[in-house]
C-alpha cells in the first residue's frame, strides 16, 4: 500500500513536467472539441490522433491521449444539456434532466452539476485504480494461458449477458470481430488465412480503421439521416452559479456514491460507460424521494448518470493496464497505442514500466482537474462549435477520418475499408448490432486465439483444462453464469412470481 503511494508520488514527478502539463491541457481541449462534434468521439478521436504521437515519448503520448479521453467524457455533457443532442452515447441519460434544466434557464447550474459530478466519478475511479490495479496485476502474474483465455471469455460473456441488444446479435457482431482479426498471417504457423489471394489483405484488418469507420463515418451517416438542425440554449457560467451549485451538490452524496460504485463495477467488467449511465439514472430515479419529478429538470438526474459514466469510463482503464484487456473501445484504442510504442500491457507492465504506469495514473488525477477547470471556464466557446452548420462539419470530419485511416499504415486501401466500416456501422446501429464487442473482439482476437491454442497444446486438445484448477474454473464458472444470467433471471422470476405477486 505505502509502496504504491510512493510509486504514485514518483508518478506525479514524472507527469509534472512542463511538456506533460502542456500536453494535458492540449489533450483535454482537443478531447472536449471531439466530444462536442458529431461523428468524432473518444474512441475514434484517439484513433485518428494516435499516429501523431508515435514520435513522442510513450509517457507523454499516453498522457495526451488519455486526457483527450477525459475531455471527450466532459464534452458529451455540453451537447446533451444545451442542445439535447448527446454528443456521446454515454451522455444520452444526461439529456433527460439536463435539457429541461437548460430550457428553464438553469443551463449553468446543470453544466456545473454535470462537470462536477463527472469529476467526482472520475476521481473515485482513479483512487480505486491507484490501489486496486497493482493488486490485480500482482495477482495476474500467476496467470497462465488457460487463465488468460478464461478472462477473455469472461469479458465476452459479460457482453452477451449484460448487453441490451438481442444476445444472438451481440454474438454475431463479436464473432465478426474475431473473424476479421483472423484475416492475414497466422502468427503461429505463418499460414495465410481468409485472404483468398488478395495479398494486400495480408496485413489484416486494423481495429483502428474499424473504429474510425464504425464510430466516425457511421455516426455522420446517422446524423445526416435525421437532417440535423442544431438549436441550442445559450450557455453562461459565472462564478456565482458555480458556487451556488457546489453548495447544493453535497446533499446528493448518496446518489453520487452509488453512481460511483455502479460506474466502477460496469467499467471494470466491460459494460462500459453507456449502460452505467442508464443504470445509475434508473436506480437514482427509483431511490430518490424526488424520483417522480425526474425528467422535468432535477439536478440529481444530471448528477447520477454523469458520475457513473465518468467512473465507468475511467475504471475501464484498470483491466487494460493490469491485465491487458480493455473494458471499452476507447481503452482498446489506448491499448493499441501501448503495443505500437512497444509496451506490453498486462501484469508485467507494473514491474517493468513503473515510470510509465504511475506517470499515467498520476496524470489521471491531474488531467481530470485540468479538465474541470477548462470546461467550466470555456463552455461558451465549446458550445459555439456546435453552431457551425452541419454542411461544413460533415465534410471536414470525413476528411479528418480519411487522414486518420490513412496514417495508421500509410495504406490507401484502408481508407476504402474505413468507408465500408462506416456503412456497416450505420446499418448495425440501426438494427441493434452492438459495435463495442465487435471492436474489442477485433483487438483481442489474436491474443485470445493464442491463449486458447496454448491452452489446447497444454492439454492436448482437452477442453476440460478450463475447469481443471480452482482459479481458471472459477473464472469460467463466473463467465457462464454471466452468459446465461438473463435466461436464469427470467426463470427465477417466473418461479417466484406466483408467491411474490
Amino acid at each position: 500500500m505505502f509502496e504504491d503511494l510512493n510509486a504514485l508520488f514518483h508518478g506525479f514527478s514524472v507527469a509534472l513536467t512542463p511538456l506533460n502539463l502542456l500536453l494535458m491541457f492540449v489533450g483535454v481541449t482537443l478531447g472536449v472539441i471531439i466530444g462536442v462534434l458529431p461523428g468524432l468521439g473518444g474512441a475514434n478521436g484517439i484513433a485518428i490522433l494516435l499516429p501523431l504521437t508515435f514520435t513522442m515519448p510513450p509517457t507523454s503520448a499516453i498522457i495526451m491521449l488519455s486526457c483527450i479521453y477525459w475531455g471527450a467524457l466532459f464534452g458529451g455533457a455540453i451537447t446533451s444539456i444545451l442542445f439535447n443532442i448527446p454528443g456521446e452515447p454515454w451522455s444520452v441519460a444526461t439529456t433527460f434532466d439536463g435539457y429541461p434544466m437548460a430550457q428553464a434557464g438553469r443551463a449553468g447550474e446543470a453544466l456545473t452539476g454535470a462537470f462536477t459530478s463527472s469529476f467526482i466519478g472520475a476521481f473515485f475511479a482513479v483512487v480505486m485504480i491507484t490501489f486496486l490495479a497493482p493488486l490485480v496485476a500482482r495477482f495476474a502474474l500467476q496467470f497462465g494461458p488457460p487463465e488468460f483465455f478464461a478472462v477473455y471469455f469472461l469479458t465476452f460473456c459479460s457482453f452477451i449477458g449484460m448487453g441490451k441488444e438481442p444476445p444472438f446479435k451481440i454474438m454475431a457482431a463479436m464473432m465478426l470481430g474475431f473473424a476479421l482479426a483472423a484475416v492475414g498471417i497466422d502468427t503461429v504457423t505463418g499460414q495465410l488465412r481468409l485472404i483468398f489471394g488478395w495479398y494486400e489483405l495480408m496485413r489484416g484488418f486494423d481495429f483502428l480503421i474499424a473504429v474510425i469507420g464504425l464510430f466516425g463515418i457511421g455516426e455522420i451517416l446517422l446524423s445526416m439521416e435525421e437532417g440535423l438542425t442544431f438549436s441550442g440554449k445559450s450557455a453562461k457560467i459565472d462564478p456565482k452559479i458555480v458556487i451556488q451549485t457546489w453548495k447544493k451538490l453535497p446533499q446528493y452524496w448518496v446518489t453520487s456514491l452509488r453512481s460511483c460504485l455502479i460506474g466502477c463495477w460496469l467499467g471494470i467488467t466491460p459494460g462500459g460507460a453507456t449502460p452505467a449511465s442508464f443504470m445509475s439514472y434508473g436506480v437514482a430515479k427509483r431511490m430518490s424521494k424526488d424520483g417522480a419529478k425526474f425528467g422535468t429538470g432535477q439536478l440529481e438526474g444530471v448528477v447520477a448518470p454523469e458520475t457513473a459514466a465518468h467512473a465507468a469510463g475511467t475504471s475501464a482503464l484498470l483491466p487494460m493496464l493490469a491485465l491487458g484487456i480493455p473494458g471499452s473501445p476507447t481503452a482498446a484504442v489506448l491499448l493499441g497505442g501501448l503495443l505500437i510504442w512497444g509496451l506490453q500491457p498486462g501484469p508485467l507492465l507494473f514491474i517493468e514500466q513503473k515510470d510509465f504506469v504511475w506517470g499515467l495514473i498520476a496524470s489521471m488525477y491531474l488531467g481530470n482537474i485540468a479538465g474541470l477547470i477548462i470546461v467550466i471556464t470555456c463552455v461558451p466557446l465549446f458550445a459555439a462549435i456546435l453552431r457551425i452548420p452541419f454542411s461544413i462539419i460533415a465534410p471536414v470530419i470525413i476528411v479528418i477520418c480519411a487522414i486518420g485511416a490513412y496514417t495508421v499504415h500509410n495504406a490507401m486501401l484502408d481508407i476504402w475499408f474505413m468507408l465500408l466500416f462506416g456503412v456497416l456501422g450505420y446499418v448495425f446501429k440501426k438494427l441493434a448490432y452492438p459495435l463495442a464487442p465487435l471492436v474489442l473482439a477485433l483487438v483481442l482476437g489474436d491474443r485470445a486465439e493464442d491463449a486458447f491454442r496454448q491452452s489446447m497444446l497444454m492439454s492436448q486438445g482437452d477442453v476440460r483444462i478450463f475447469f481443471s484448477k480452482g482459479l481458471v474454473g472459477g473464472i469460467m464458472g463466473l463467465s457462464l453464469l454471466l452468459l446465461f444470467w438473463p435466461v436464469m433471471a427470467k426463470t427465477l422470476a417466473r418461479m417466484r412470481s406466483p408467491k411474490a405477486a
Partner: protein
Amino acid sequence: MEKKNESAGVAAKGISTRAAEIAVALMFFLVGGVVVFDSYRIGSGWSSDGPQAGYFPFYIGLIICISSLVTLGQSLFGAASRSDKVFVEWSQLKQVLSVLVPAALFIGGIQLIGIYIAATIYIAVFMVWLGNYSWLKGIVIGFAVSAVSFATFEIWFQVPLFKGALDPLRFLGY
C-alpha cells in the same frame, strides 16, 4: 410512428426493418460460411505440432452461422416478422446517400490527386451543393482545412500523407 400502415405502405415509405434484418442476417451467414470454408481448407484439426491455423477460426465461423440463423429465423417467423417498422425512409436514404456517394468519390479522388487537393474540392463542393454556400466560402474553408492539415502532418509531425497517383503537389517538395 404510424402503426396502421400496411406492408404495401411500408414499401412506399422506405425499406422495411424486416427486409434489412433478413439481408444482414444472410450477410452474416455468408461471412460465417466463408470463414468455415477457408478454415477447413487450411486445416481446422490437429497436426503433429498442435492445433492447425484454421482450428480457432473454424469455430468462430460456425458460431457466426448459428447466431445469424437464429436472427434470420426470428425476423422471418418471430414477433418481429409482423412488425411494419421502416428501416430507412426513402427521403432519409437520399440524405444518407448524399453524404455517402460524395465521400466515395472523395476517396477515389484521393487515389488520383492526393488527400490535400481532393479534400479542398470535396469540402467546397459539399458546402455549395448541400449547404447552399457560395463557391468563395466553400473554397476558402476547403483550402484552410487542407492547409492546416498540410502544416500539421507534413511539416510539424513529419507524417507524409497520400499525394495521389498523379502527385500534383510535387512542386512543394514534400
